[in-house]
């Protein structure tokens, strides 16, 4: 198989932190391999401290790996041109922190365009409107500031910005975890319909199995910096192999009181 066949490929990725020079080393990510294909969703599940968010940061080049490489379209991400970088986007957990409180919605969603080149006002307006409508927002929202949106709307805004450049891959780092359940469902739906329309691939990082199950084609289970199990959705849920996967599944609360462990 040629390297280009994977949209994103992660090889032997490690990230070790240490507070002081001779201090203890924290192995946040310790030898991780995975790949993502075009148009698919890879779920990464792990509890707090498992290293899943560190992986997201390394993919986005917000952290430097201690070891290993990340290939996007077959090229090492450190060698990507700005144009190629645009095809890689991220959505964060906290929609409030990821929106500049002093920018209006229209400027936020079109920011990816005008960072590098000037854009006529009129065109920017049209682009902004199109993007907002695509995520279920409207004209009236164009001139609002982030604090004037509700939590779910803010996450829609983040999504609008992420899809502005028609990316090939979006890393969703706990993108729905901070939302109420009914909003989670809506955002998941939005993500999956955008995937159908544009063929975007997702890396969907979450700590909860149920949400990951709804949207992922394949799932990787992380534990203490390592991927302990990878498989298709059905493999993971129907036939988990690793003990940790099993215990995660067992810890998910029942969907009906009839299914309580203690009856």
């Amino acid at each position, binding site marked *: 198989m040629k390297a280009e066949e994977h949209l994103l490929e992660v090889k032997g990725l490690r990230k070790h932190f240490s507070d002081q020079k001779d201090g203890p080393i924290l192995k946040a990510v310790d030898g991780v391999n995975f790949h993502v294909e075009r148009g698919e969703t890879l779920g990464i599940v792990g509890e707090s401290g498992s290293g899943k968010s560190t992986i997201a940061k390394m993919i986005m080049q917000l952290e430097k790996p201690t070891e290993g490489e990340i290939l996007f379209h077959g090229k090492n991400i450190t060698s990507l041109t700005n144009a190629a970088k645009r095809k890689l986007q991220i959505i964060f957990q906290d929609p409030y922190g*990821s929106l500049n*409180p*002093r920018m209006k919605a229209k400027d936020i969603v079109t920011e990816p365009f005008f960072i590098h080149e000037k854009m006529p006002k009129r065109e920017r307006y049209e682009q902004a409107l199109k993007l907002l409508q695509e995520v279920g927002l409207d004209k009236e929202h164009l001139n609002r500031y982030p604090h004037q949106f509700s939590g779910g709307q803010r996450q829609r805004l983040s999504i609008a910005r992420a899809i502005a450049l028609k990316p090939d891959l979006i890393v969703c780092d706990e993108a729905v975890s901070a939302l109420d359940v009914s909003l989670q469902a809506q955002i998941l739906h939005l993500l999956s319909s955008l995937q159908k329309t544009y063929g975007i691939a997702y890396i969907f990082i979450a700590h909860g199995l149920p949400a990951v199950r709804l949207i992922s084609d394949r799932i990787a289970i992380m534990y203490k910096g390592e991927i302990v199990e990878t498989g298709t959705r059905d493999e993971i849920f129907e036939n988990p192999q690793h003990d940790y996967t099993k215990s995660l599944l067992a810890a998910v609360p029942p969907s009906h009181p009839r299914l309580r462990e203690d009856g």
Partner: protein
Amino acid sequence: MSKNSPITKTFTKIRNFTSPLGLIGSITVTIIVLLAIFAPWIVPHDPFAIDATKRLIPPFWVDGGSTTYLLGTDHVGRDILSRLIYGGRVSLLVGLFSVIISGVIGLLLGLLAGYLGGTWVDHVLMRVVDAILAIPTLLLVLVAIVVFEPGLITLIVVIGLTSWPQYTRLVRGEVLSVKQREFVQLAYTLGAPHTYLIRRHILPNVVSSFIVVATIGIASAILTESSLSFLGLGVQPPDITWGGMLNDGRNYIATSWWIATFPGLAITITVLAITFVGDWFRDVLDPRLKQGGEGNE
């Protein structure tokens, strides 16, 4: 009037942006500034005119006072009210211009240190800041006065050049925290150039707390100036300063309390008013208080 008429809207806007203290503060500051600008045309008497026959006249409401000299006269017979109006000029000039100097230096170095947080540039700058902050501002200014002749320009430059570290420290801290925010990281992942990140994301989120502190910095500079003038090391006579007037009056405190009392009040009121304006800026500049609150799903 309809709820959406432009007048109602404007009115509501003003009301939302105005705290009572902010309003009092800005009106007071405006009055003080106007008095200072138009001092030569307003003053009831020549503030420099010495008249031995009119020494130590008390304010008009005290026995022996007269409405000719509303706030009385000093030990050489000069009209206190007129001198107060003139004294505001020095205080405001020093306050404003020294903060422009220290603010610009502080803001730029703060941006630099914060943006390059953790690098040697940051470390060196912060050690310099620590060292300067370890010396009382007043002492630093005093020493610098020895080097340069006391006077208005010296005062402005010296206060300006010694009080920037507080802004650097503040701005650096804010930049460090804004830099961690995800929207900056996002722009960074898009390959945004440094100038863009600073201009578009960092500066707008730092500038409001900077303006608040710089405004209050004007008040501190006025206090420093008045202390120096009080010690006789500020702007020199015959130029009039509130601190200098206070110094004149302290020896007469037992007999003619008004000489030292009114300049002190003038300083206090000016500093208070500027502080109120600064606090008011804090609210006005917060984007979360702009145009309504939370949206609905």
